């Protein structure tokens, strides 16, 4: 079951069981919320970003239901943002683009742990084309929410 274990790495199962950023923060300060659905499997996420006066992303919180990949991905995204004390928008955009590119690469482009933190464990998903959408869900919501701030 090496295929399965390359997909469901320990870290992914951990995040899906003990998700970070779960529970939407109050709508205070400059914030925006995005709701996204995956119509095929019914997974949904509501994700909220809060940005500082400098425009940097202060935090990501979310609520949602879905498979372990989609839950872990949201949790890892929240953790990644939490690591920095304010993530510049340009950096956020670059992360989203890089994540999307890697996931669509069918295993060609691994995610760099230095850049993506725990989310780098999602590299294996790119070989499972039917699951790419699961991993992307939170990131699409993140992109959409950012565009609304």
């Amino acid at each position, binding site marked *: *079951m090496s*295929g*399965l274990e390359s*997909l*469901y790495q320990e870290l992914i*199962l951990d995040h899906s*069981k003990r998700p970070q950023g779960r529970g939407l923060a109050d709508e205070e300060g400059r914030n925006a919320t995005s709701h996204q659905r995956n119509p*095929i*499997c*019914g*997974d*949904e996420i509501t994700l909220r970003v809060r940005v500082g006066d400098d425009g940097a992303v202060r935090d990501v919180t979310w609520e949602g*239901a*879905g*498979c*372990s*990949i989609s839950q872990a991905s949201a949790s890892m995204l929240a953790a990644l943002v939490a690591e920095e004390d304010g993530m510049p928008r340009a950096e956020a955009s670059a992360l989203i683009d890089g994540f999307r590119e890697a996931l669509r690469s069918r295993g060609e482009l691994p995610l760099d742990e230095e850049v993506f933190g725990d989310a780098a464990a999602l590299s294996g998903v790119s070989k*499972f084309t039917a*699951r790419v959408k*699961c991993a992307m869900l939170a990131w699409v919501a993140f992109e959409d929410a950012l565009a609304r701030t």
Partner: protein
Amino acid sequence: MTSPAPVLDLAAIRADFPLLGERVNGHPLVYLDSGATSQKPQAVIDAEVAFLTRSNSAVHRGAHTLAAEATELFEDARATVAGFVGAQPEQLVWTSGATAGLNLVAYAIGNASAGRGAPASARFALAPGDEIVVTETEHHANLIPWQELAARTGAVLRHIPVRDDGTLDTDAAATLIGDRTRIVAFPHVSNVLGIVNPVGDLVALAQGVGALTVLDACQSAPHLPLDLPSLGVDLAVFSGHKMLGPYAIGGLYGRSEVLEALPPFLTGGSMITTVTLDEAQYLPPPQRFEAGTQPVSQAIGLAAAVRYLDAAGMAAVHAHEKALEARMGEGLRAIPGIRLLGDATEVERVGLWAFDVAGVHAHDVGQFLDARGVAVRVGHHCAQPLHRRFGLTASVRASAALYNTPEDVDTFLDALSGVRAFFGAGS
């Protein structure tokens, strides 16, 4: 002395399906997704290829030898498939599938409501306040076309609820179906619950108020002996690809007097008598409903598919699948944390079970099984309202066909029993 139930020669059957010999992720494929689409026997593939390489030509349109040959093969296919569901050839309209068939009916009724095809079609015309009754168990294909028809005509859509055990609430149906009811549409077998619905009861209720009945026979045609005229429904649909046949072909059965009165849906070539720049006169059924070039090779493929099913014997197919269903149901009930959808006892079933695994998302279950070569379907199976009714957004569905073995079921059950531990969802 009763004759023994006919049995299938499973080894021979499996050998007829090239894809069943594939390996997936290092394991022999266990295909339990026939509810979505079935695999095709070599005979079906060969029939299409033979047509395309030896007789291919436009049908109903040419006088040359090839065209005449193609037309004969095409019309013979109609007779074969019609016969398989107990109907006359002229009662069978080719469609591109069940979805297309249900849309055909809904749009034709919409056209009748707009005055097209009158006076014959006037009996189908809907007025604001008229009611269309469906069930809570519908596949979206037998739900949204009626929602749209209701929105266009002002008719009201109502639904027969499903009980906790997955059976239709026929008591509620008896109250719901009344003077305002014009159409009653329902599945022969739900693609999530697998229970054979009481067609006779619903038809009787509908006939009592003069409502038109529309049967979604997608999940029964591949699995049960089917005699549509004796079921008494006015219209019924099925899809070729779910019954060993090609994609892009299906059938709409209609009682003759219903088809004759229904205005056309798709319009274009081969369904007309006289056309001027301003108007057209239409052929009788089934041609009236078959605009444009038809799925010719696919019709011939579907005829090969039903001949295959007939040769196996639908009674034997049903008995075999029933045994698989029972084995699967028992096994599933024995695995901790599994909740079956529609676990009614004392009902007739086809060989499918949908279920929820406590603490593990359906998608993850599917992925886990796939790693063992077991192909099942996960998601809402195009039945969101039904899933919502059971408090779910998604479930796992294992569905069998005549080519599945008891070993397939056991492999599936064995794999499944490890899933909660893997995802740390408790034993």
